[in-house]
C-alpha cells in the first residue's frame, strides 16, 4: 500500500513542488498541523511577520519584484480578517498570490465556532478566486489550481481555505503535473486581424502616443515595449503601475501621466490622434473625467489580457485581447515587415510641440530652500543608489514624489499600492522584495503617518536581518490629505496633523536598528551615503521636510487631464 499523507503534509509538499522558497505567515490554532509540517522540512522557509496584513504585503512585494507567485499563510478568524487589506491590495494591482488560510473543522463550520469567519465570503470580492477544501482528496489538485489561476491570464490573489480536520486527515498524495479547466482558458495571442489594423493606424499616426501600464510589468514585456517605442520614435508615458516598463531616462519618455503626471504627458494624451494603450486600464486617477478625455478627434488601440478592462471607461476603436508580450512581439514583427515608415515630418512637428510642453518644467521646486524639500531627498536617493535600488512606497505625497523623481529604468523596481492605495504597504512589501532579491539595495519611501500603520514589522526586519533603508519623508502631516484640504476644503486641516509622533530614531534603535534624523538640506546626501554604506543594517532615516510642500502638477477630481494645477 502506498503511503498516505496528512492534509498538512500535502499542503507543504505542494508548496515544495511549486518551488516556493519563502512563505510569509503567522500561526494560530487552525493552521497548527500545517506549521508542524513546515517545521519538519527546510525547503520552504517560513518568515514570521508581526501582523497578517504584513504577511500578505510581504508576499506581494516578493511577487512584484520577482514575477513569482507570493505565498502567505494565516490562521482562521482574525488571521484572515487581518489579511484582507493585503489581499485587496494585491487584487487591485493584479498581483499573483496564493493565500492559505486555516478554517475551523468542517463539522464546526456554520456553528459560530471559535475563530470562525466565512473566509470565502469575506474575501470573495477581493480575490481572483477562492476555494474551501472540504474533501482531502481534492486538496492537492486545488492548490495546483490556485497557483495556476493566480499566475495566468490577468494575475491575482487566490485563497485556499483549509479546515483543520482536513489538514489532519490522510490520503494519497498525487500532485497533478498540469491543470485544465473548461471554464478558465486565458488567451495569450491577440487576434491577427486586429493586430494588422493596429499596425495600419500606428503607421498613419501624426500625433501618436504610447500609454503603457502595469500590464507591461506583469507580462515582463519591458524589452518589447522599449523596442517598439524606439523603432517608431513615438513618445511614451507610463502609469504609476507601469513605471520602469519604459526607461525613465530615455528621451522618448515623457514621464508619468495622470492626476500627478507631468504636464507634457498629460497634454500629449489630450492632443494625440492615435493612442496606443498597452496593459493599462484607463483608471480615473489617470484619465480624469472620461467626458473631458481628449481635446481632439482620436483613435484608440487597446492591448489588454482582460476583456473587461477594454471599453470599460473609454470606448476604444481597436481592442486587442491578449498577453502584452505576445501581442508586442507580433506588432513589432509586422511593423518591421512593412515598407511604410512612420510619418517623420509629422512626428518632428509633434515632438516640437511636446518639447514646448516639457519646457514648462512642471516638476520644478525650490532647490535653494533652507528647509529640506521632499523632492530633493528622492533625487538624492536616486543619485546615491545610482538608480539601481528597489523602491517601495506607502501612500501619500511621498509616494508621488518617489514616482516623479526616482527615474526607473528597469521593471519590477518600483513597488507600490496604486489601485487600493494602502498605507502600511511599504515596509512589509520591502521585506518581501529583500527576500526575493538578497544583496540588492531596497529602500522604502514613506511618510510619518503611513509608516506607523505597519511599524511593528521593524521587529521582523531585525529577526531576519533585512538591511532595508527607510526614507521617512516626515512632514508632520498626512500631507496628501492636507493638500486636498488646502485646495478643496478651505484650508481646514481636519485631523490631518500628525501629533504625538514617536522619536523615530529611538524607535528604530529600540528594535535594534540604526536611526538617523536629518533636518538640514546640506546633510541629505551625506546621510544617504552613510546609510547605504551600512550594508547589513536597517537604517531608519527620518527626514524633517517642508510641511507645506504640495504635489504638482495636479488634476483636480472630475476635471480633464489638460486642466492641471501647476506650480
Amino acid at each position, binding site marked *: 500500500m502506498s503511503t498516505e499523507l496528512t492534509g498538512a503534509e500535502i499542503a507543504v509538499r505542494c508548496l515544495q513542488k511549486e518551488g516556493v522558497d519563502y512563505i510569509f505567515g503567522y500561526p494560530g490554532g487552525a493552521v497548527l498541523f500545517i506549521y508542524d509540517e513546515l517545521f519538519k522540512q527546510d525547503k520552504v522557509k517560513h518568515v514570521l511577520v508581526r501582523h497578517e496584513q504584513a504577511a500578505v504585503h510581504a508576499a506581494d512585494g516578493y511577487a512584484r519584484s520577482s514575477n513569482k507567485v507570493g505565498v502567505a499563510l494565516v490562521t482562521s478568524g482574525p488571521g484572515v480578517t487581518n489579511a484582507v487589506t493585503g489581499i485587496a491590495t494585491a487584487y487591485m494591482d493584479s498581483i499573483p498570490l496564493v493565500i492559505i488560510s486555516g478554517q475551523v473543522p468542517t463539522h464546526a463550520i456554520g456553528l459560530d465556532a471559535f475563530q470562525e469567519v466565512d473566509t*470565502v*465570503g469575506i474575501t*470573495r*470580492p477581493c480575490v*481572483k*478566486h477562492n476555494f*474551501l477544501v472540504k474533501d482531502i482528496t481534492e486538496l492537492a489538485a486545488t492548490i495546483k489550481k490556485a497557483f495556476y*489561476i493566480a499566475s495566468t491570464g490577468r494575475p491575482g490573489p487566490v485563497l485556499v481555505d483549509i479546515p483543520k480536520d482536513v489538514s489532519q486527515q490522510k490520503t494519497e498524495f498525487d500532485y497533478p503535473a498540469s491543470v485544465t*479547466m*473548461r*471554464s*478558465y482558458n486565458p488567451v495569450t495571442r491577440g487576434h491577427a486581424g486586429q493586430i494588422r489594423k493596429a499596425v495600419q493606424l500606428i503607421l498613419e499616426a501624426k500625433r501618436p502616443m504610447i500609454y503603457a501600464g502595469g500590464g507591461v510589468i506583469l507580462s515582463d514585456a519591458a524589452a518589447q515595449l522599449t523596442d517598439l517605442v524606439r523603432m517608431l520614435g513615438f513618445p511614451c508615458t507610463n502609469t504609476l503601475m507601469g513605471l520602469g516598463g519604459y526607461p525613465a531616462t530615455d528621451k522618448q519618455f515623457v514621464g508619468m501621466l495622470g492626476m500627478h503626471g507631468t504636464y507634457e504627458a498629460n497634454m500629449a494624451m489630450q492632443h494625440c490622434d492615435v493612442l496606443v494603450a498597452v496593459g493599462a486600464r484607463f483608471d480615473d486617477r489617470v484619465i480624469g473625467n472620461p467626458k473631458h478625455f481628449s481635446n481632439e478627434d482620436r483613435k484608440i488601440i487597446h492591448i489588454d489580457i*482582460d*476583456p*473587461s478592462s477594454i*471599453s*470599460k471607461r473609454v470606448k476604444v476603436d481597436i481592442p486587442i485581447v491578449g498577453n502584452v508580450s505576445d501581442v508586442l512581439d507580433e506588432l513589432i514583427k509586422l511593423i518591421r515587415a512593412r515598407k511604410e515608415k512612420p510619418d517623420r515630418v509629422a512626428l518632428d512637428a509633434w515632438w516640437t510641440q511636446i518639447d514646448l510642453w516639457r519646457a514648462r518644467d512642471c516638476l520644478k521646486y525650490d532647490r535653494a530652500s533652507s528647509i529640506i524639500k521632499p523632492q530633493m531627498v528622492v533625487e538624492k536617493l536616486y543619485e546615491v543608489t545610482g538608480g539601481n535600488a528597489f523602491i517601495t512606497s506607502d501612500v501619500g505625497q511621498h509616494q508621488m514624489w518617489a514616482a516623479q523623481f526616482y527615474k526607473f529604468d528597469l521593471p519590477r523596481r518600483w513597488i507600490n499600492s496604486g489601485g487600493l492605495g494602502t498605507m502600511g504597504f511599504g515596509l512589509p512589501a520591502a521585506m518581501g522584495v529583500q527576500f526575493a532579491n538578497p544583496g540588492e539595495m531596497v529602500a522604502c519611501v514613506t511618510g510619518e503617518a503611513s509608516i506607523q500603520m505597519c511599524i511593528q514589522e521593524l521587529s521582523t526586519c531585525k529577526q531576519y536581518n533585512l538591511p532595508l533603508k527607510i526614507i521617512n519623508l516626515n512632514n508632520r502631516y498626512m500631507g496628501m490629505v492636507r493638500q486636498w484640504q488646502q485646495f478643496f476644503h478651505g484650508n481646514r486641516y481636519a485631523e490631518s496633523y500628525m501629533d504625538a509622533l514617536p522619536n523615530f530614531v529611538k524607535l528604530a534603535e529600540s528594535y535594534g536598528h540604526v536611526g538617523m534624523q536629518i533636518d538640514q538640506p546640506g546633510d541629505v546626501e551625506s546621510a544617504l551615503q552613510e546609510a547605504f554604506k551600512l550594508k547589513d543594517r536597517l537604517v531608519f532615516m527620518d527626514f524633517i521636510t517642508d510641511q507645506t510642500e504640495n504635489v504638482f502638477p495636479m488634476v483636480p477630481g472630475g476635471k480633464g487631464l489638460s486642466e492641471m494645477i501647476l506650480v
Partner: protein
Amino acid sequence: MENEAGALSRVAGLFSSRGYNIESLTVAATEDPTLSRMTLVTAGSDDVVEQITKQLNKLIEVVKVVDLSEGDHIERELMLMKVRAVGKDRDEIKRMADIFRGRIIDVTDKSYTIELTGTGSKLDAFLEAMERGAILETVRTGASGIGRGERILKV
C-alpha cells in the same frame, strides 16, 4: 457554470458589488450533473450589458455566457397563485385560468391554487386580470430562457 457550491453566490456577489441589478435569476443542474445553467434577467445600456457579460465570463466557475436577447429565443416563467374562491367566484376564476391556460392544481372549499407558465408579461397580464382582493399569495420563479431553433448553448 460548474455545478459547485459557491458559484451562485459569486454571480450574485458580482451583481451587487458592481451595482448591476438582477430582475430575476433561476438556476438548476442540467442533464450533465457537473454543470448547472442559470438564466439571469437584467437591464442596462449596451455598454453595461457588455461589461456584465465580460465580468461574468471572468468568474472562474462560469463556463459560458450568452446574451439570449441578442437573438430569437423563448422565455418561460412559472407562477403559482393562491386565490380566494368561494361561491360564484369559483366558476369565474376557473374560467379565467382556462383563458390563460392555467391549471388549478390544489383545491379547498375556500381557495384554488393555480399554476401558470408563460412569458413574464403573460403572467403580469394574468395578475392584472385577477381581482386584487381575491389574490392570497403568489410566487414566481423568474424566467428561464433558451434559444430558438438551431440556436444551441452547449459546452
